[in-house]
């Protein structure tokens, strides 16, 4: 019997363009072709649009037409194995944008089998994009064959600056429109990464694992349930098809090796889903660094010389297995999984280059069992539930047991105090164990076609216990410390005025209970118990409006809080002291943006400008206490931020993008902590980049030499203006410490065969071998060359 091809077609306008692309890309018809009997993607189906243009579906059964004219489009599907199928999709000019298209879809496409979980995800982000939240959505798919980590990709986005202290696995500080560190929350598939440890972080997740990254600036939708202040980054992993297999290996400078394996399989008559992911990262990070080496006797510091780093290696392993079902009567999705990871990172130096270390390292081991559950029509017909529960067990150790003073050549002398560590006053084998329990519940209720209610509750309990077998003082966390946070949010979303106006109103509640122990004032041996309980409320509004069919305006406002997290409150037991007295920080955020899209023939240009205003109070900042540091509620700041971006593409082959961000962060604390008038009032906050820009250019040759092959060439440049380490107004301008201006260039060439089944990519990061610094004196790697091989198949 002739198999009947049933096409599931969904149309939406998420931006699927190139890397670093963001937000609304309109007039897209994208679809997904499945075989009716097997429900598997059909590759090689020829899709015609208006009988003029044709493309083939890829290995995932996907096709895409972009930059289309308004009006009705005839779409014709042809396949050797299947019956032909015709449909029409109308792209309406009156409202322009995603939602309209979705509505048309319900009229034209047979959505009866549109049951892939993923669709829900997409429509969700689509809704967010239209409700006025400022979000940059980066489609990672075109970058998956390149040798990149997520940090590198994010760094090209406007408003984002990732400051890395060194090579692979090094500490980094992510900043977004002037906010940084823990003010920004990170999620994987909507799950907060707070307690995941360093084996799973932005600078070691390879791009293969990731489908899309959404960067929310300022106002964060309720479903993410976070108490972030400055924004959030949500990484969506690849879950598109029923079966796939992806393996990649890369080898680069400084003995950097990365391997990743991702597989998904559906087994047996019950259609048990088996997902597996493995990631391996290794680097010696032995890149050349410019340093002054003191004379061993006189200590004299003279000329700079180039030396190889010798204690900066990094090794990490992560594995994840999940089993479950989807699209059953009793569940839309049910997954049970476990993630395990471990890493070891050598520490080459502290916060400056004057004290290199030869034997200090840290390790961490993390085990996370988890459960995901989704159910539509939960209790009520129009009520959808999604839940996530996890338990994190993280063990971290800091090893600093040598009393040697190393120099940059790797030679050493024994310290005066044989009980001293290299970095720490006392030798340490400090070990701490974190146990965290997180639960997230999202409820969505459709009151009416135009109104949706959402409720989120995120519950997080963290307990930390520490010990140090060789410590001579009271050990932090020898008594368990705990921090319990509840964040609840309620929002109502609405679509009005013939789909042109959308808005979201929300309220959030933050509850925190903590029990900590602090060292008695200046006494190393006595711990005092402290408890804190508090409740705060936040509220906000996000609106979007199509002024004309080509011009979308978005705006959002919120007045919110962020609760201190475990790291800030508990410290790290070493140089970072605990501060159980931390209060939540507060901020008023306002964003407004305009997006203009225009098309001339096969060219498409999108211009975007956004203005962001932030007014943080009681900002949690790191402050110095002689040797150690501690987080304190300190600054009142005012942030004015402007972002401009242009994106151009020609026929989906040639892409050009440039963007720039200028953020003016001004200290508006009138008084010093001692009550005196601050001379730094209205001074720019130090040690934060304030002007940066990126450009990128790429071209793809399709069917290069061989059919279904693709050759892509890409170059990109990154600029960060110099900035002062310390308060700009203080000291002679000529004597001030600066983090110098950066201008660096990256390039890559990628060749793929059989619609990306096999690919090979050569990359050169910082190919002009510039000496680059993100942080004062902490030199980043020079030229980094690599080759990446990837095999990816979906069936």
């Amino acid at each position, binding site marked *: 019997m002739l198999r009947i091809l049933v096409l599931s077609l969904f149309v939406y306008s998420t931006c699927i363009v190139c890397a670093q692309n963001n937000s609304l890309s309109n007039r897209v018809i994208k679809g997904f072709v499945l075989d009716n009997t097997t429900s598997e993607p059909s590759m090689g189906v020829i899709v015609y649009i208006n009988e003029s243009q044709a493309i083939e579906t890829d290995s995932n059964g996907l096709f895409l037409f972009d930059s289309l004219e308004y009006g009705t489009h005839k779409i014709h599907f042809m396949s050797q194995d299947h019956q032909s199928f015709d449909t029409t999709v109308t792209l309406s000019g009156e409202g322009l944008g995603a939602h309209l298209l979705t509505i048309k879809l319900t009229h034209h496409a047979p959505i009866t089998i549109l049951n892939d979980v993923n669709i829900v995800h997409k429509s969700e982000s689509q809704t967010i994009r239209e409700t006025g939240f400022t979000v940059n959505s980066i489609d990672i798919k075109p970058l998956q064959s390149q040798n990149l980590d997520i940090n590198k990709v994010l760094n090209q986005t406007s408003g984002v600056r990732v400051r890395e202290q060194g090579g692979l696995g090094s500490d980094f500080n992510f900043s977004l429109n002037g906010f940084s560190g823990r003010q920004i929350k990170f999620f994987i598939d909507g799950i907060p990464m707070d307690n995941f440890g360093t084996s799973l972080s932005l600078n070691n997740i390879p791009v293969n694992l990731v489908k899309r990254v959404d960067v929310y600036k300022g106002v964060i939708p309720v479903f993410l349930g976070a108490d972030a202040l400055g924004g959030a980054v949500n990484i969506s992993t690849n879950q598109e098809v029923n079966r796939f297999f992806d393996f990649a290996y890369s080898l680069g400078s400084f003995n950097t090796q990365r391997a990743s394996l991702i597989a998904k399989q559906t087994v047996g008559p019950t259609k048990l889903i088996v997902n597996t992911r493995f990631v391996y990262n290794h680097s010696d990070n032995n890149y050349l660094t410019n340093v002054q080496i003191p*004379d061993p006797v006189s200590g004299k510091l003279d000329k700079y010389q180039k030396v190889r780093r010798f204690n900066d290696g990094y090794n990490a392993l992560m594995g994840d297995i999940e089993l479950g079902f989807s699209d059953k009567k009793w569940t839309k999705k049910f997954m049970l999984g476990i993630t395990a990871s471990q890493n070891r990172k050598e520490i080459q130096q502290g916060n400056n280059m*004057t004290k290199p270390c030869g034997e200090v390292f840290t390790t961490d081991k993390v085990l996370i069992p988890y459960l995901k559950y989704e159910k539509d029509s939960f209790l009520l017909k129009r009520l959808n539930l999604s839940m996530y529960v996890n338990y994190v067990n993280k063990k971290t150790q800091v090893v600093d047991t040598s009393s040697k003073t190393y120099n940059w050549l790797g030679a050493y002398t024994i310290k005066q*105090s044989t009980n*001293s560590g290299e970095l720490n006053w006392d030798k340490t084998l400090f070990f701490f164990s974190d146990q965290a329990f997180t639960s997230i519940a999202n409820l969505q209720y459709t009151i009416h076609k135009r109104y949706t209610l959402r409720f989120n509750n995120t519950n997080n309990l963290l307990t930390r216990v520490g010990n140090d077998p060789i410590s001579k003082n009271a050990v932090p966390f020898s008594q368990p410390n705990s921090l319990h946070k509840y964040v609840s949010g309620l929002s109502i979303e609405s679509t009005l005025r013939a789909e042109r106006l959308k808005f979201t109103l929300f309220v959030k509640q933050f509850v925190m209970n903590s029990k900590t122990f602090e060292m008695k004032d200046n006494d190393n041996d006595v711990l005092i118990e402290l408890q804190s309980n508090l409740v705060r409320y936040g509220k906000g509004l996000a609106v979007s409006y199509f002024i004309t069919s080509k011009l979308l305006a978005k705006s959002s406002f919120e007045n919110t809080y962020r609760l201190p997290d475990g790291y800030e409150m508990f410290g790290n037991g070493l140089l970072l002291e605990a501060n159980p007295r931390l209060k939540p920080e507060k901020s008023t955020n306002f964003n407004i943006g305009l997006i203009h899209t225009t098309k001339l023939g096969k060219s498409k240009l999108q211009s975007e400008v956004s203005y962001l205003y932030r007014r943080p109070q009681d900002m949690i900042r790191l402050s110095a206490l002689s040797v150690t540091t501690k987080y304190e509620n300190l600054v009142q700041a005012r942030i004015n931020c402007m972002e401009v971006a242009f994106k151009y593409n020609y026929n989906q082959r040639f892409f050009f993008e440039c963007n720039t961000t200028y953020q003016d962060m001004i*200290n508006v604390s009138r008084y010093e902590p001692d009550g005196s008038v601050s001379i*730094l009032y209205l001074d720019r906050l130090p040690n934060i980049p304030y002007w940066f820009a990126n450009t990128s250019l790429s071209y793809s040759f399709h069917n290069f030499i061989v059919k279904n092959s693709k050759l892509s060439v890409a170059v990109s440049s990154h600029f960060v203006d110099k900035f002062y380490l*310390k308060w700009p107004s203080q000291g002679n301008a000529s004597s001030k410490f600066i983090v110098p201006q950066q201008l660096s260039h990256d390039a890559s060439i990628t060749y793929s065969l059989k619609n990306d089944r096999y690919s090979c990519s050569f990359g050169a990061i910082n190919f002009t071998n510039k000496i680059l610094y993100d942080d004062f004196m902490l030199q980043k790697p020079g030229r980094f060359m690599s080759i990446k091989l990837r095999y990816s198949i979906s069936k």
Partner: protein
Amino acid sequence: MKVKHTTAVLLSLAIGLFQSCKTKEKDVIPVEEGYVLGFRAQNGAATSSENDADYLLTVKTLMSGTISSTGNGIEQNGWCYYTHTGGTYLVQGYQDNNAVGYKVENGLLVEKGRFAFERMDCTNEVGDNKTLVSIGAPWGGGSYDCNIQLIDMERIEIASAKKHPLYFASATDSAKTRLNMWPTGTYVENGKLYVAFYPLNGTSWETPLTDTAYVSIFEYPSLSYIKTIKDTRTGPIGYYGDPTCIIKDENGNHYTLSNTSVNSGFTQSTKPSGILKISAGSDEFDKDYFFNVEGTSGFKVLAAAYVSNGLAVARVVKDDPSFGAWGTFSYSGLQPCKMVVLDLIKKTVTEVADVPMHGGQYKTPFLVENEKVYVSINAGTEKHIYQIDPKTAKGTKGAKIEGREIQAFYKY
């Protein structure tokens, strides 16, 4: 057309924004004759550890106007200790282990060289206008060796160093004596190096031994150990942070200051605070001299500057256990310190009028010029330089300090 229009508007917006935000750079103004100051700036309520900075700067006068690091001074990475000899000013980092030497040339401070060190906890002039003695103390136990370093300030480098304990516990000493010996003050006289110290646990800040004042004596410049002299009329001399706890009169006699204060780093107080004397040429405490400052006035004497005719200006504190072990040096609103005039001959203490209660300083700097003493007074919201006349015991408010405090004063 429309695209071009939008693009042009956005571009000009962007350019306008960037241009409006350029910062102006000021020129450095030479000061032909004046003072070199180690200036501790406000670190701002928005501070983070990397924002802490000291500035080495020059000013014409101490008695009028405002002293500020706004657009002025050579930026230092974090807190610093300062010493001076023979026209070279040494700025020694507390956060990073670099020391930098500067000279004043044509009214401007110019860097002359730098060196790296492991520890420099107590640094003082030798008196030959070219050498400093700097002692690095061990922390954390395991070793009681101090690293006694001679620093050549012409070459700005460590000329020689010797590791040696400051004190040998004898068989008759109690176990408590096997403590870390932390150097607090030094002087060189007649080919001998005198080192005052206080015993502390060394892995914690505990000070279980507070009933004896100690000075160890070494040969100079060979740095061979000679002996340790002790006196039990008062407690250990000085405190953590390299204070000015040894003063010298016009006849070459040295006076040592024992503070015995539980707010200044000692965890117990078992003897009254007072002053001992080592007469010129002697290598013993003067048995006939003891100035019981606490008995006389109730004050603990922290640091002092000698002026003339037995008069010295000192910073004193009254102990209050609720202030904690380091309360004297707190920036958090405590102002426990007072300025007094000491008469070392008559053994009297006179409170200085017109100088407010204030917070203390590590390595308390004083400048003595024309029989007057200049000090930095941080009285909480108000910070000023005060000139103190020891003859009248009166203070005069001078320049306003737009920062936290002055960490070093030098006349040039």
